[in-house]
Structures are given as C-alpha cells and as structure tokens.
C-alpha cells in the first residue's frame, strides 16, 4: 500500500495497521534525509500549511514547523489561548479565514477533545491533530512506537507500561491505541485517582505498583504529571507521588533486565524520573525528539500526497 487510508490524521484510532507501517517506512527515508548535510527535500513546495496552536506548546510546534520546512512547505503560524477565541470568533470561522488565504493543510492543537474531528467535518483542508484535550496526540504515539521499533526491532509482542497521569493524557490514549494496533501488550501504572475507571475496556491492565510494572515491561513510558489540567488534587503532594511512581536509578538497576525508558517531555526532573535516569543510556528521550521530526515529515508528506490527487 502506498497511500494512507485516511485524509486527515485525527487520531490513532482512525488508522489501520498498514497506515502505521507506511508512515514508519516513509519516516525511515526522511530520517536519513535529516541526517544529510542538506537536510531538506523539495517535496511539498506547492503546499501551504497553517500551524494553529490554541494551547501552549513548544516542542510539538517546533517539531511540526521543522518537519514542514524540511519538506519545503510554506508555513504560517497562529497561536492563541482558547479564551481569546471564545471571546468572539468561532473555531470554524477562525480556520475558514485562514483557509481563504489558500492554505492546504492545518496542524492544530486545541484544548477540547474532538476539536480536530469537528473541524474536519466543517472545513475543506487536511487536518493533522497535534493534540486535542485529553483525546489524542497521534504523532506523539507514532514517534514513540517508531522509537521502540528502532531500539527493539519491532513493537509487536513487547510489554509497554505507561506510568503517570493517564486520566488527563492524550499521549497515553494515543499510545494505547497505537501499541495495541501493533500487537504490543500494554499496562498503565499510576495512582488510581489518575487512571480512568473504565480503562480496562480498552484492553489495558492496571498495575498500581511501579516495581511490579517495571519488572513486567520492556519499555516504560513515563508521563508528566499535568498539574495544569487538574481541577482538584489527585494526590496529596509531589513528594508522595515521587515516592510511589518516580523512577530513579536505584530502581532501574534493581530490575532483572534492562528496560527502555521513554518520556514525551517536558520532563519534571526529580518528579517522574530522576536526572540520572533521564540522562542514562537506557533513556531514549532525545531519540524520541529526533524521530518526531521524521515521523511528522512522513505524516505530512503522505497526507499532502492525497491532497495532490
């Protein structure tokens, strides 16, 4: 198969396994490109992409922008706190205004779950979801799986534990969908207050003991505690959280095997992982960041080639 089954990248749950394979194979090529002296291809010279960030982001926005520039696409950027949009203009109007300037693709981060899906039904452009509330963050999950594949050869059959704030995390949800689709086994680990009550309906096991979870896994994906999304305290103190769910070198060394440690960033050093873990050989956090550009290039390139048809 040489094209995606979808016209938008709204979430992993709308993809098929063959889509992921295609994105990964395309990303292999682009990863080689970005390590050349001239890190650029002319593929998307006729494509204009709008990066609309209705919520703060640093690395995802930079990663998308870099991916677009490496593909020679024209880009425009728009950042706004959702509140300023709420004051007057609706999302559809905002985006249609931008599209009327002949934009082909929209990369959007938005605080509301389903915002990308909503937009895809009402505007004429290819939509890439760069994170929508606690729903999905598909390119993050793709780059995470891609990084696992790079380090371990394949994703199928691997045991992956996602640790931390699952309740508020689009990264967790997209990762669960992506890993299950590729045949990995997934557990989530964290305080029960930060795990959705019905997470088992996604065929995911809950393990509240970090050591047990780590002993089981090949890969530990340590999520950031998203204090900014919490309306009340889900645990008494950061200190207690770290005591129960923080990963340090001592724990890592006590395991009877060498696991891989991932983190979608930004890291709260000393909270979910200590510095010596983050900087260890077992951590592939910076590989994830580099792979992010290749994955986003692949996704954008494949979606753009559908527009061109």
């Amino acid at each position, binding site marked *: 198969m040489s094209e995606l089954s979808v016209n938008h990248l709204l979430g992993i749950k709308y993809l098929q396994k063959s889509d992921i394979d295609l994105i990964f194979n395309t990303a292999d090529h682009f990863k080689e490109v970005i390590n050349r002296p001239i890190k650029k291809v002319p593929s998307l010279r006729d494509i204009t992409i709008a990066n609309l960030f209705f919520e703060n982001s640093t690395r995802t926005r930079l990663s998308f922008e870099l991916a677009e520039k490496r593909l020679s696409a024209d880009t425009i950027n728009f950042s706004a706190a959702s509140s300023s949009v709420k004051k007057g203009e*609706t999302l559809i109007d905002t985006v249609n205004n931008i599209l009327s300037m002949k934009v082909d693709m929209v990369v959007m981060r938005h605080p509301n779950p*389903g915002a990308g899906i909503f937009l895809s039904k*009402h505007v004429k452009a290819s939509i890439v979801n760069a994170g929508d*509330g606690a729903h999905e963050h598909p390119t993050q999950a793709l780059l995470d799986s891609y990084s696992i594949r790079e380090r371990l050869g394949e994703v199928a059959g691997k045991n992956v534990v996602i640790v931390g704030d699952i309740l508020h995390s689009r990264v967790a949800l997209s990762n669960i969908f992506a890993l299950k689709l590729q045949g990995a086994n997934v557990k989530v680990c964290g305080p029960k207050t930060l795990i959705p009550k019905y997470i088992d309906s996604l065929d995911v096991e809950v393990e509240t003991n970090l050591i047990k979870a780590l002993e089981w896994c090949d890969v530990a994906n340590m999520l950031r505690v998203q204090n900014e999304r919490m309306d009340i305290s889900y645990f008494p103190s950061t200190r207690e959280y770290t005591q129960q769910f923080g990963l340090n070198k001592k724990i890592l060394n006590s395991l009877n095997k060498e696991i891989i440690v991932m983190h979608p960033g930004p890291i709260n050093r000393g909270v979910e992982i200590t510095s010596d873990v983050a900087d260890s050989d077992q951590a592939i956090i910076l590989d994830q960041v580099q792979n992010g550009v290749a994955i986003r290039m692949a996704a954008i390139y494949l979606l753009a080639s559908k527009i061109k048809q």
Partner: protein
Amino acid sequence: MKLLIKSATIVDQQSDYHLKQADILMEDGIIKKIGTAIEAKADKVIDIDGLHVSQGWFDTSVSFGEPGYEERETIENGLKTAALSGFTDVVLNAQSNPTIDNSAALYSVKAKAHANAVNLLPTGALTVKAEGIDLAELYDMSNAGAVSFADYKKPVSNPNLLKIALQYAQNFDGLVQSFPLEKKISGKGIVNEHHNSTLLGLKGIPNLAEDLQIARDLYLLEYTGGKLHIPTVSTEKSVALIKEAKKKGLDVSCSVAIHNLVLTDDLLSEFDTRAKVLPPLRTKSDTKALIEGLKEGTIDFVTSDHDPIDIENKKVEFDNASYGSIGLESAFGALQTIFSTEETIEILTRGRARFKAESSKIAEEESAKLSFFLPEEKYTFEKSDILSTSQNSIFLGQSLKGKAIGIFNNNQLIIKE
C-alpha cells in the same frame, strides 16, 4: 363547530372501542357520538387512511425559550410543535431569561398560551433566579397556576434548602422537583463515564453522581414528607432507589427522557454535539433498567425533555456546546421503537393529575381531548420532520416508527393534512 372523524382506530384501554375502528362526532368540544358509520352533517370531516386516536398526550418537561431566548423557540411555535406532535398538555420549564420565579412572570407566560389548543402548564423556579440560594415565592406562584417548582437542570446542591422547600410546599400541596446530579462528583464531566468517555478523552459523569443525589433526596423526603418529583433519571440504580422509596410509601414520582430510554452513549463516537444532553446518554444496562422501570410503573413519566438550542451553541467544539435536544417531534416515533402502540399510548397519557393536567375520556358527553397518529409508518427522522425553530434533534438520522399528526383539544383542531 361540528367535527366528524371517520373510521379511526381508538387506542384507549378504558374505552369499549379499544382497538376498534369507529367514527367520532364532536360538537363544541364535546364528544357527541361514537359509533360505526355515523351519518351527520359536520363543518369538518377527517378521513385519513390508518388514522388512530387516543386520549391527549402529556409531557412533563418542555422548554420554549420565551422570554429571553426567542431565537431558540417561541411559546407560539413551541405549542404548535407540541400540537402537531400529538401533545395536548405540556409542562413548561422555568428556563427562560429572566427565570420565571414570580407570579407576574408566570402570568405573562400563561397569557402567551391563552386560548391555545395545547394546555401550557408552567413550572415556577424553586429558588430566586434559579440560583439555588433563596426559595422563590412558591405559594404566590402556586396561586398563579404553577404546577410544580424546579430550577430545571440545576440541582439543589444545598440539602437544607431542599428540606425546607419540601416542608414549605406542603401547605399548598406543591410539587417540588430536584434534578438528580451531585455536582461535586460530576465535576467537569460532560458525558457518561464509561467506555466511550475513556475512548474519546471526554470527561465523564459517573452514574454515582445521579445515584448519590437521588439517595440524598429520598432520605430528605422521608424526613420531611411532601411531594417530590425527580426529573429525567438515567441510571440503573436510580430506578432501584426510587422503587424502594415507593415501596416505603414516599410520595415520589420521576420521569425519564425519551432519548435516555432509546439511545446510548455509543452515539458520541463522532463527537456529535447533538448527542450532548443532560443527564448524559448512558449504557445498554441503564436503558434496559429504565425501560423495565417504566413498564412496571417505578418511572411515572416519559418526557421529550424538549430543549431547543440555537445552532450557535451547538455547532461548536463538544466541550463548548450546550446541553439539550428537541424531542417533541420524535417522541412518539422513538417510543414505538421499544414499545408497542398500546404501551406507548398508556405511557404518554398516564399520571397527569400529578401536574394538575386535565384528564380525559374517549366517551360520549365527555369533553374531547384527543391525539391523532399513524402508528405503522417506518422512517428515518430527518430535518424535514422538525417543526421547531431550533434543529438540535438527537434523533436526526435515527430509524423511528409511527408519526403523530395532531390533536383536538379546547375545541380546536390542529392537524397535518
């Protein structure tokens, strides 16, 4: 006016003509004769193939927006929609701007419905501006014709306030409503907490939020006495709690919204804001319990929970969309997807005394209060079926069975021909 209805099938368990075809002759709003092949001169003859007729239908919760939200719906068009959807009596929520929390406001709403074919039964706000702080003038509103007191979808968070309301309203036999939602538990939840909320990353409202509030309210009722109505229950456990309370002899009634009976939260998969309602659509095990509860009488009423919302508040991101769906137009057709015609009619006509709605009989010399419908037609509910000013129907695209076509009430005929 003389009106002759030709060969209509009468659906009325109290009538000798139950499930039989008959002609009905009416004069000045009174049923003069029921029989086969009535020959009489009439000002108007209705002869529609497959026509069925029953006692007038009753809805315990509709909102028409007026005053304040006329862009959503007006009382005039709302009542016309009710009539053409088969309803002769509707209880109007106090959900307007300003809120109907005093007798003057109540009179003005009633004046808008004066001499209408449909009887409009207004609910007064339970608390001033429906803010949940101070009781509104319930006695004064009761004298002005309020049939119950409710802050619509705003729960009475302060248990002492509900205690006082239930005690106070007993002086004038007032019916107090308490919306079943414990807000601290529901938090920022907007959909049912279950598989679909997990899948979609939408914040969930657990069944617990409803169950806990109902348990609290029933304890209060047991202490105070008085009359309590719990509008639009949605969970399995609510039905069990209310069943138990009724067994104890508490004077409690409850209703269920038709969409909560017929639909589940599977409808959320595309983040369609039309499916954003409160209480949220739940799961199959809830709908099953609700249907059983309704059949056995634990649940007293179904309601369309008709709530017109303008497109500006629905065609937005799911989080930002308003709750609510219109429901009058689809009520009969949706109920018939789960109940037989006889059951549907029994459910739509029962219990009206609770809200001081007139009852009726299909018998000679009785005043005529009739609903007209065609029960057999199967169809997909579409925009062309909508009569309301707002089009926010949760049932768009659903397969329904049977259509209402009008009413005869207050000596007025409103019918689709």
